[in-house]
């Protein structure tokens, strides 16, 4: 019987660019392929954050419910983007909603599985944390720019 592995797919993701082979082999067992239709709610604020997603195709809206305004999209993630880092930090709960706005294919990584492997191999943990920190910093910068109301009359 022919078996397939996600390793080649994971390797070609920008997030894992330059990731050592031994670590790829370690994390591949935590990954699975997922596919979602438009309108599907991936998670809601307060849900358990048990995984993160690497979007291969499609688009996901990160939303927050604002009283009087309804759902406001604060960010979209698409091909090559990482969605979610709440799986990394206690209490492991999502802080936003995520909804599919274009049919999406992604890799889903099991957070508990990854945390266990990182606890056993701190080098792997450090490598993953560096990559997530980079994303967090990028997002923080983008959020600051959004807060500045860049294109408004006051800038």
């Amino acid at each position, binding site marked *: 019987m022919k078996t397939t592995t996600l390793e080649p797919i994971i390797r070609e993701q920008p997030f894992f660019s330059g990731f050592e082979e031994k670590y790829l082999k370690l994390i591949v067992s935590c990954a699975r392929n997922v596919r979602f239709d438009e309108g599907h709610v991936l998670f809601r604020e307060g849900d358990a954050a048990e995984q993160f997603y690497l979007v291969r195709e499609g*688009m996901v*809206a*990160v939303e927050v419910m604002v009283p009087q*305004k*309804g*759902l*406001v*999209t*604060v*960010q*979209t993630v*698409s*091909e*090559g983007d990482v969605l979610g880092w709440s799986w990394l930090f206690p209490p492991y709960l999502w802080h936003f909603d995520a909804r599919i*706005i*274009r049919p999406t294919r992604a890799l889903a990584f099991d957070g508990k599985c990854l945390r266990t492997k990182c606890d056993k191999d701190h080098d792997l943990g450090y490598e993953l944390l560096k990559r997530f920190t980079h994303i967090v910093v990028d997002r923080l*910068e*983008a959020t600051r*720019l*959004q807060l*500045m*109301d*860049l*294109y*408004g*009359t006051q*800038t």
Partner: protein
Amino acid sequence: MAPRLESAERESVTDPMLPAPCRIQRVRNETDDTFTLELEPLNGNRLFSFRPGQFNMLYVHGVGEIPVSICGDPANTQTFFHTTRVVGTVTRAMRRLQVGDVLGVRGPFGSAWPVEEATGRDVVIVAGGIGLAPLRPAVHRLLAQRGRYGKVVLLYGARMPQDILFPRELERWRGKFDLEVYVTVDRATGAWRGNVGVVTTLIPRAPFDATNAIALTCGPEVMMRYVVRELQRRGVGSDHIYVSMERNMKCAIGFCGHCQYGPTFICKDGPVFRFDHIESIFGKAEV
């Protein structure tokens, strides 16, 4: 004794400080606070030509004069377009003007986008908010001679979906197979199904060859700062990035010094600068 000019000769000598009367042909509200004027010189025989990126000084009689970039198609020499946002006394008065009213116009002034120098290269255009207006003539020119360039990519960011400038034109451009258009907004509710995030987030994934690209950017200065950084991170050299600067321009010919920017005058040496020429003073609080 200086030779006396015949009257016909006197008319042909253009005084850069003398506004030419131009009639408003059309007024179009673009967004809540942005509008476009289509102008025609009162002397109907006069052709109006400009280079993409240049600006005119628009004078509302009895109110004041402001610099506004020219945003139409440079191939159109009969009428010309100005899109501006209502931000002060002059633009408020300008918005109240109607078809048939007359404005004073001086120009065109300033430097231009390097559309000729971009020949043989990919061109990436990054615009934010009303910064799309000064880049629009460059897009027209690039499309008019599309075969000369590699990929042409337009990245545009606006505050909200309803703030997107020239939405029909963006859709038309996006529909062309030889121009890639990506639009993003800072916040969205309801039916918006496009990107949400600042315009800089579009740069890492935009389809262009950074080693052989020319980048043109216009928008608020703080936006351009982060755009430049992201372009450099992608591998575009400072000598291949062009920015359009904005300051308090008064005379528009480098006399008054109001728009002095380090060793340059924005009205005369700019508004379009190659980034490496101003890199040392760009983003500084005071120069």
